[in-house]
Structures are given as C-alpha cells and as structure tokens.
C-alpha cells in the first residue's frame, strides 16, 4: 500500500468521469443492438465481452483500480480467477456428461 501522506488525490477529473459514463451508455446501447442479431453460440460470447469491457471501465476509473497498488489488484482479480474455475468447470461438466439413461 502506498504510504505517501497524500495518497488521496486520484487526479481523475469531471471530464474523465463524464467520458467514462458516456462510454458506458454507448456500450449499453451496443449490447442491446447487437442482441438483435443471431451469432448462434457466439451470442453469449459477444454479450459477455461487452459486459466485461464495461465492468473493466467501471473498476479502472470509477473504482480507481488504475491507481491502486499491486496487492489491491491481486485481491481484485483473485475472486475472478475462482469464478472462472467455478463456472468453467460447471460448463465443461454439463457439456461432456454422457447421459446414463438413453
């Protein structure tokens, strides 16, 4: 953790926050628009990709993760790794299971 006496200032001004907010609005519109097209199995991939871009922007700028130290980054990303394991293996199990009763 940074221990300078003035750790408080993040140097993020109104302009940056406004741009971030606008970008999030635009991405919301994009995800609604894109959902009208059928990409088959890639529908969910596209939707999750856009959501993850939005989530990253929120974390980096609104939550100031961009200005945080390594330790905070590790603790922010670790639950996502666990989530990846949980959901990844759940999906894998579902698609590879062979029905017992045919």
């Amino acid at each position: 953790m940074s221990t300078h006496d003035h750790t408080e200032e993040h140097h993020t001004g109104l302009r940056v926050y406004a741009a971030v907010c606008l970008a999030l609005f635009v991405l919301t519109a994009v995800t609604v628009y894109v959902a009208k097209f059928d990409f088959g199995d890639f529908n969910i991939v596209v939707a999750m990709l856009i959501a993850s871009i939005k989530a990253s922007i929120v974390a980096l700028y609104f939550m100031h993760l961009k200005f945080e130290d390594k330790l905070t980054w590790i603790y922010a990303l670790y639950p996502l790794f666990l989530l990846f394991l949980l959901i990844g293996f759940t999906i894998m199990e579902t698609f590879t299971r062979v029905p017992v009763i045919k």
Partner: protein
Amino acid sequence: MSSTVEHAESHAHGHGLGDAVTHNAAKFGMWLFLGTEILLFGGLFAAYALFRAKFPDLFYDSHKKLDVTLGAVNTIVLIFSSFTMALAVSASQKRNRKWLMILLSVTFICGAAFGVNKYFEYSAKFHHNIFPDTNIFFALYFMMTGLHMLHVFVGMGIIFALIIMAKQGRFKEGNRYTPVEVGGLYWHLVDLIWIYLFPLLYLIG
C-alpha cells in the same frame, strides 16, 4: 495484513498509524469484502451457466417475457448513479461539502428510481402469473435480481448515512473522507453486477 500495516508504519516516520495508512487499510478491506460479494453472486452465475446450457430453449423463450426497455433504463440509471458516486468521492477529496451532499443525494435518488422500476417489473410479472416457481429461468431471474436489489437497498442505506455524516461536517478539512470512498466502492460493485445481469437475463440472443 498486520505485516502490511507494520511495513507501512515503518514508512510513516514515527507518526504512528497515519491517516494514509488507515485510509488504505479501509479501502483494502473493502476490496476484500467485494471479493466475497463476487463469489456470492458467482454461485448464482454458475447455476445460471449450468441450467442455460441444459435448457437453452426454455431460457430463450422465457427471457422474451422480460421487458428489455425497462432493463436498459435501469442499466442507464445505475451507470449514471455510479458516475455521480465517483464525482461525490471527488467532491469529498476537495472538501466540497455542498457538492458532496448534492451528488450523494442524486446517487440515492437513482438507487430509489432503480427500485421503483424494479417494483413495476416484478408487479407486471406477478400480474402475468410469473413467479419464482414458474420455471428455472424465472427462479434464477428472481433470485439474482432480488439479491441484487437487496444490495441496492444496502447501498442506499450507506449513502444515506454518508449524507448525514456530510451534513454533520464529518468530511471537513483535516478529516478523512475514507467512508465516502469505501462506500463508493460498494456502490460501484452493485453497478458492476447489474452490468452482467442485464445481458444474461434480458438479452439472450
């Protein structure tokens, strides 16, 4: 954690636990808590993944009964509230009490607007005889959005407390604004989770 604090303290040049250290420790603690929140919702996301993979048609047909417009409006409302919350943290850093209170109030009102919107959405579903036991899609829909709504209410409670604290002059010059920043982190997480809930529930292509 204690080693981190000690390490930090050694740099504080004998002033004991400085404001900066306390501030960073509180922030770090909130990030840890947010990790547990992500995993709490993570269980539901895993259940969603499993059942959507098993019943793709049921998910597709059921999601059409949700109102995309209402969902999109709520997404915009929450993003905007995150924007005003970020600005509120800025205002507290600049010790601008007036704007801090205005921005916190706007954030609170956005949270309330989200709740009202959700109330109408739930009512419409109940009116059409759609309940959590209708099928697995709606079981997950009500559970996920309900748990999220609970977080919105908790966040609104925190923001309300911050408004009271600001009114009492707790974030004046020389005082730490830590509660505003830490409360802000919580509010942003509520936004973050909705960013995933919206496409997963309303926009199954």
